């Protein structure tokens, strides 16, 4: 797999990358969720991992953030082997999972302070850093309100504040804008870009929204059925297809036939399931 307008994704080269996966395989029983994945993310990039549900994006993220074991292959984060130096890897990560997850009974400030402590932010700096993170997410005015009273967009921004309070070298966002309205989505992205500009962190995100990836990512990787189908800058990938091509078109070209088969098979399965249920019901 090569990057149009970039370096080969499969061949690790140069100084330690922010993330480097080589031959990563992850299975859940018989199902191969990630299938010999080679991936390299350069320091400072905003890298988008795109693909439909079940493509293996979340599994990949869960392996690199140490939640899942490395079953086969190697994963290095800033040169650190995830298998051997999990704690050191975690120190460099900020992570926002798919679902909105805060402690509703705690205030916004308490939620962020909690993560500042878990990440060993020095006591003398802690209050300032928490305020900075809340301010960057435009939540300082409501910091002492219970987080349970926040809107979906505010909760997502609070999660970003939690993830950013330790100034992570790699910010991992797993579908960070799913379920948010367009204004909240825009708000989240404005702030991520601002934090990236301020701290020069590397950002890895997964998303279903191709327009979002097109606008925000320096590099995108299209993933389907556990494998990488294409890697490159959005502009270069689009240019490969045609002058008016979108990332949706790029994705259809690389995985479209498979997607159609998958949908067809799913349709047949659904019919079979309905017939079985109908038989059971008499």
């Amino acid at each position: 797999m090569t990057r149009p307008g970039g370096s080969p994704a499969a061949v690790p080269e140069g100084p330690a990358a922010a993330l480097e996966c080589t031959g990563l395989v992850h299975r859940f029983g018989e199902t191969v969720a990630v299938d010999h994945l080679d991936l390299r993310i350069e320091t400072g990039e905003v890298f988008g991992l795109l693909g439909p549900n079940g493509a293996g994006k979340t599994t990949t993220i869960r392996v690199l953030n140490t939640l899942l074991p490395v079953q086969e292959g190697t994963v290095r984060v800033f040169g650190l082997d995830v298998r051997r130096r999990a704690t050191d890897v975690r120190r460099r990560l900020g992570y926002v999972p798919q679902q909105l997850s805060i402690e509703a009974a705690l205030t916004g400030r308490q939620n962020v302070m909690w993560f500042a402590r878990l990440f060993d932010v020095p006591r003398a700096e802690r209050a300032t850093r928490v305020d900075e993170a809340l301010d960057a997410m435009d939540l300082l005015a409501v910091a002492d309100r219970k987080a349970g009273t926040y809107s979906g967009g505010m909760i997502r921004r609070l999660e970003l504040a939690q993830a950013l309070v330790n100034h992570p070298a790699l910010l991992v966002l797993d579908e960070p804008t799913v379920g948010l309205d367009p204004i909240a989505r825009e708000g989240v992205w404005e702030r991520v870009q601002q934090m990236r500009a301020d701290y020069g962190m590397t950002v890895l995100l997964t998303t279903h929204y191709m327009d979002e990836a097109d606008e925000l990512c320096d590099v995108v990787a299209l993933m389907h059925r556990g494998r990488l189908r294409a890697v490159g800058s959005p502009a270069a990938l689009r240019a490969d297809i045609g002058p008016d091509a979108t990332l949706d078109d790029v994705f259809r070209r690389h995985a479209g036939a498979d997607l159609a088969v998958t949908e067809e098979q799913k349709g047949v399965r659904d019919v079979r399931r309905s017939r079985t249920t109908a038989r059971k019901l008499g």
Partner: protein
Amino acid sequence: MLFSRTVTLSLVEMQKLRADYTELFTRMAQPVLWLLVFGQIFNRIRAIPTGNLTYLEYLTPGILAQSALFIAIFLGIQIIWDRDAGILTKVMVTPTPRAAIVLAKAFSAGVRGLAPVVVLVPVALLLGVSITVNPLKLLGAAVALMLGAGFFACLSMAIAGVAQTRDRLMGIGQLMTMPLFFASNALYPIDLMPGWLKVISTVNPLTYLVNALRGLLVGAPADLWVDFGVLVVAALVGIVGSASLLGRLVR
């Protein structure tokens, strides 16, 4: 690192508890009912030989231990809830030892286990139970309660790692609660039990918690070194076991 993370996570548990006291109040009612209804009736029947102690004196430490068990054995539901809400995942991606997550939950179970003391002890005193006022003994009893609750909370979290869902954990918890309770000396002396039940009672940490509480609170004969030794070892095994199973919850 383990200590500082445990303190941080315990602080969060206390902040959550402080945000809603309701749970603590509801936890206080059941043990009082046991003492007022069950305890008073069996005190009058005088069917259970309890040596120099009245049945109410014998029962009060047993009810304290029982309430700690009942509170802690369902604590695994909280950790499954944290998993379902994505909170456990986020914490596990920080440089936090898994044992710290388990220890903080065990601590919160211990605090919850202490809550019934606030009401049960005054009620017991009103019913004529002579409970010690020696602050060292009271402190010792609190430590024993926290160790016992901590062990049962760890047991619950270990089951959560295997059961994976709240419904399954509820079922397993209910299946375990009564055998643990009745196969202990909380309600009656071990000497009254058939041989097979004596064996179970001897390996049941609840028995040692009751023994310690009885020795400290109402002056019953007790081997406190053995009782605390068993409770400490059980808690350590529980922490290691549940911490090693915690990862299964987020896979």
